[in-house]
């Protein structure tokens, strides 16, 4: 009885402490204490109430930009993850050569994405004469490249780190390669896929925001942050920052929920 009570207290304090901290920071921000601490005026760091009213006043415009960013980030994430998984499947066929390829793929993780954005802008100029379409394409390609590596590295581990003799067992069943993949490799790689997604989902949003800085067409949350800072409209920029943070958090929570429900089913099995 005593232990359950203690756990409850633990659980409550685990929520209450951060919540209290958040509320204190929020109140300090609203009350202007944060401005004094950071030596900024209310122009560069406007109180939350003002940011909030800007978000509600410009809902239509913000949603338009948000849509552009979400499309780029999610399509890029999807394509990149598929390519990464495909690469991992190919690499897992021959471990000796495959692991070398995966090492090279992980090296791409270290390439600054900023360098990729202008390259893709130049490349897509030759694909389409429509600015909307080609700047979207350029941004999506950058996000895609960013997402490939983490998926390839993790899925490769998921496809190769099997239980001992699991593959031999499948062989004794005379299972075809496709059956082995469907029944053994694919389920085995699912947790690794989620590990990869937990890294590449925030990365996809960040790279979508960053490539927007360089893209031809002035659209997207990231571009709006920059445009508004350049024109010294900090309150509007803050509104877009808050929106981008919410986007990141909401998508991440959705991913965690999906992961939870998928993994729960597996545990019962």
């Amino acid at each position: 009885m005593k232990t359950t009570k203690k756990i409850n207290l633990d659980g409550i304090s685990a929520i209450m402490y951060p919540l209290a901290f958040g509320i204190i920071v929020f109140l300090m921000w609203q009350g202007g204490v944060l401005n004094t601490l950071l030596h900024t005026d209310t122009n560069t760091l406007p109180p939350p109430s003002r940011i909030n009213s800007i978000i509600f006043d410009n809902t239509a415009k913000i949603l338009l930009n948000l849509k552009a960013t979400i499309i780029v980030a999610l399509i890029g994430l999807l394509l990149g993850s598929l390519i990464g998984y495909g690469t991992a499947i190919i690499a897992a066929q021959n471990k000796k050569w495959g692991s070398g390829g995966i090492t090279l793929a992980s090296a791409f993780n270290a390439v600054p994405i900023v360098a990729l954005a202008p390259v893709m802008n130049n490349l897509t100029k030759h694909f389409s004469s429509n600015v909307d379409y080609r700047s979207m394409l350029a941004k999506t390609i950058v996000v895609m490249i960013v997402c490939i590596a983490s998926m390839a590295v993790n899925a490769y581990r998921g496809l190769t780190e099997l239980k001992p003799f699991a593959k031999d067992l499948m062989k004794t069943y005379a299972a075809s390669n496709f059956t082995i993949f469907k029944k053994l490799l694919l389920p085995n790689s699912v947790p690794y896929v989620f590990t990869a997604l937990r890294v590449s989902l925030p990365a996809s949003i960040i790279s979508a925001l960053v490539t927007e800085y360089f893209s031809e067409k002035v659209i997207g949350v990231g571009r709006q942050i920059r445009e508004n800072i350049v024109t010294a409209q900090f309150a509007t920029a803050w509104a877009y920052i808050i929106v981008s943070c919410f986007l990141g958090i909401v998508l991440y929570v959705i991913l965690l929920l999906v992961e939870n429900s998928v993994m729960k089913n597996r545990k019962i099995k």
Partner: protein
Amino acid sequence: MAELNKKKESNPFVTLVWTLGFFIIWEIIAFLVEASPSIRSPEKVLPHFWKIIATAFDSKKINGSETAIQLVWLNAKVTLLRSAQGFFIGASIGFLLAILMSLTNVVKKIAFPYLMIIQMIPILGMAPIILSFTGDIDTSRVVIAAILTFYPVATNTLAGLEAVEKEKHELMYSYAAKKWQLYIKTLIPACIPYLFTGLKVSAPLAITASILVDTLQGGIGLGCLLSQSLKGAMTRYVFWLIVVISAAIGILSYLLMGIIEDLVSSHKKAERACKR
């Protein structure tokens, strides 16, 4: 063990072949780009790799006083220095916070959810606002590099501190070890591999951050040079040289962390090789 040795020997060779293969594909695409009639300026899309390297050794001065490689190197040095500064500040804060979080439950409970949230917030997207906070572009470069370095280091170190087996805690307790002795002798050595995992993630991030913030305002730094070369102030090959060099710096920073890890904990090298 024999297999392990074999694997170790063949690895550099395989990587070498892959790297060569990558450059061969680059050259083939560059050749196709050059050959296709619709693309008027192939050097804007994808030039030959050897031409980029040739630019590096070109002795022609591009802005009156410096050759291409001198100019890029000058800027790269500044970028490296700034990201190194941010990296060290961020890594130390992250490490200290992880220790603090493992020491007191209250700090851990307060900080942990926020560490998770920071991970989901696009910090690089906030670069312009941090610039307007600090007012000084150099400070904001360091600050953003530090923020990006901070959370992989903090979360990984904390995971390392908590992964120490209960038996080790009990052993230290039976030795009547003081709290600081427990940390110095057991916990900190145990979390070193985790710390380096965090450092390996964040070293290229710190460099990306520094380059990105460069592009927001003029001055000196790889990112500033990058935006200048894009505007056509100098030959397009300078731009490509920057792309190649920033990629190389990113990869080298990752490798450097591995080398430092080997130096710091050489006794664990064999263990790591097994894990790989």
